[in-house]
């Protein structure tokens, strides 16, 4: 008896014997059940016709394709690839069928998007520490640097840049508050990530080492910022060895691989 081999993204899911009336669809009363939103309830059927078997599309929403061509009625040949939604059914006339049990599937198929269930997920994560550091874990941050006030009025002599984003401006969310009329709400933002600090100009005029800052620029130890009458010196954290927050080697590798 000929058979149909159900495949999804190259993986064989199951085999079905083709009987006198074989139906394909999403609903459970079909011979070949494909639980996928792209498949119609009763999508297609295979019926004997003369010596051969004929595939008929049952006016499905997304159509039935044989060897990548849409078909309404098609006499099946050995080796034909029937496409229903994203699932492929290979028509195999040669074999005597031994229906294989569906391979054990460790993924739950929800529509087309697969979500790993919690237990499997945890087990997997245990073996994927490296990947986790990159895509799942919280990245390690560069050791905290400081802004030292060289000149101008400020409420502190030194500002420690602990946050992911530190602002200089008149806004009340700013770390370094600019006081007085006509000060920009946010003059610059200083972003901290695993590689260090990057300063971005957002309003008003800012000079970095006496050059106007226009885009983004990485901060290096000793850089001087002039922001609305305030002169600040950036000091990076003490060199590794002294610093308590030195990145671990594994994390450093993961960080490097992400930078594009």
């Amino acid at each position, binding site marked *: 008896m000929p058979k149909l081999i159900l495949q999804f993204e190259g993986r064989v899911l199951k085999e079905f014997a083709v009987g006198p009336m074989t139906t394909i669809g999403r609903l459970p009363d079909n011979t070949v059940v494909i639980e996928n939103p792209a498949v119609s309830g009763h999508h297609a059927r295979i019926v004997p016709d003369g010596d051969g078997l004929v595939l008929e599309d049952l006016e499905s929403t997304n159509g039935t394709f044989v060897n990548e061509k849409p078909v309404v009625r098609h006499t099946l040949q050995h080796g034909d690839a029937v496409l229903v*939604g994203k699932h492929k059914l290979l028509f195999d006339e040669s074999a005597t069928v031994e229906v294989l049990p569906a391979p054990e599937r460790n993924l739950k198929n929800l529509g087309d998007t697969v979500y790993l269930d919690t237990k499997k997920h945890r087990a997997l994560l245990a073996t994927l520490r490296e990947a986790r550091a990159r895509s799942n874990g919280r990245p390690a941050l560069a050791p905290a640097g400081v802004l030292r006030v060289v000149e101008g009025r400020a409420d502190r002599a030194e500002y420690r840049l602990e946050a992911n984003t530190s602002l200089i401006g008149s806004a009340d969310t700013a770390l370094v508050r600019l006081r007085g009329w006509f000060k920009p709400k946010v003059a610059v933002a200083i972003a901290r990530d695993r590689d260090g600090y990057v300063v971005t100009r957002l309003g008003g005029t800012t000079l970095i080492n006496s050059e106007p800052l226009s885009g983004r620029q990485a901060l290096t130890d000793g850089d001087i910022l002039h922001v609305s009458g305030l002169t600040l010196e950036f000091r990076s954290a003490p060199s590794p060895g002294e610093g308590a927050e030195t990145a671990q080697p594994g994390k450093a590798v993961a960080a490097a691989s992400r930078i594009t």
Partner: protein
Amino acid sequence: MRLRVGAGTDTGRVRSLNEDAFMLRAEQGLFVVCDGIGGSPAGEVASQMAVDAILARLDGPARRCAGAADHEAGYMPHTNRLAEAIRRSNRSIYDEALRDPSRAEMGTTIVGAWIRQHIASIAHVGDSRAYLWHRGRLEPLTSDHALEEGGALLRALGREADVDVELQEVAVQPGDYLLLCSDGLTRLVPDAVLAEAIVELREPQRICDYLIGAANESGGTDNITIVVVEVADAWWRWRWNRRRRKGRPGHHAETDSAV
């Protein structure tokens, strides 16, 4: 600072339903893209629930956030508010899935951006992505919570009682573009084409329309959703620059720099 916004969603060429959802509040600088999972109709329900819950939480006057336990040190207040709104939406989807067995497997990815004071707070769960176009470079802002092979999601909203929301903050300047999208785009259209579309088209709505078309040309195997936000100069500066560039229709909004 002005934000010019384009957005679009498309079922694609294979699916019969669109389970994606998006939300724009340009006046507030708030943008969200969700990609629902769990099959019909649960996937649609989950993505729409996420969008609605976040809107309900963040649209309107600032409420005091819940306890400090919810706050992650080092992030700005609005980043934490966005994260908290997403965690709440997770809980409401999770509760609904427990309540209604037909929706037991629903869930959704999310990527949200909230631009305030020139800082874009980015929060995401799952494989919906955010990119920043800055000075000729397209930078991915998010990393997928999914397996590289096969793309199975490692995190989604609504699947567990608590969810770990990944946060980012990035300063945005006039000329930058922020792009949020579902994996129906990024699985089919390479990053280089996203960058090219921004360079060539410039107008947020045209970029969206073009990229949706490109994903469909490449098979349209999944729902496609894109939000493109252009960070533009203040209106007077924009008017000045307009001589060099023809304006096109789209959603425009002035974001109060004081918010």
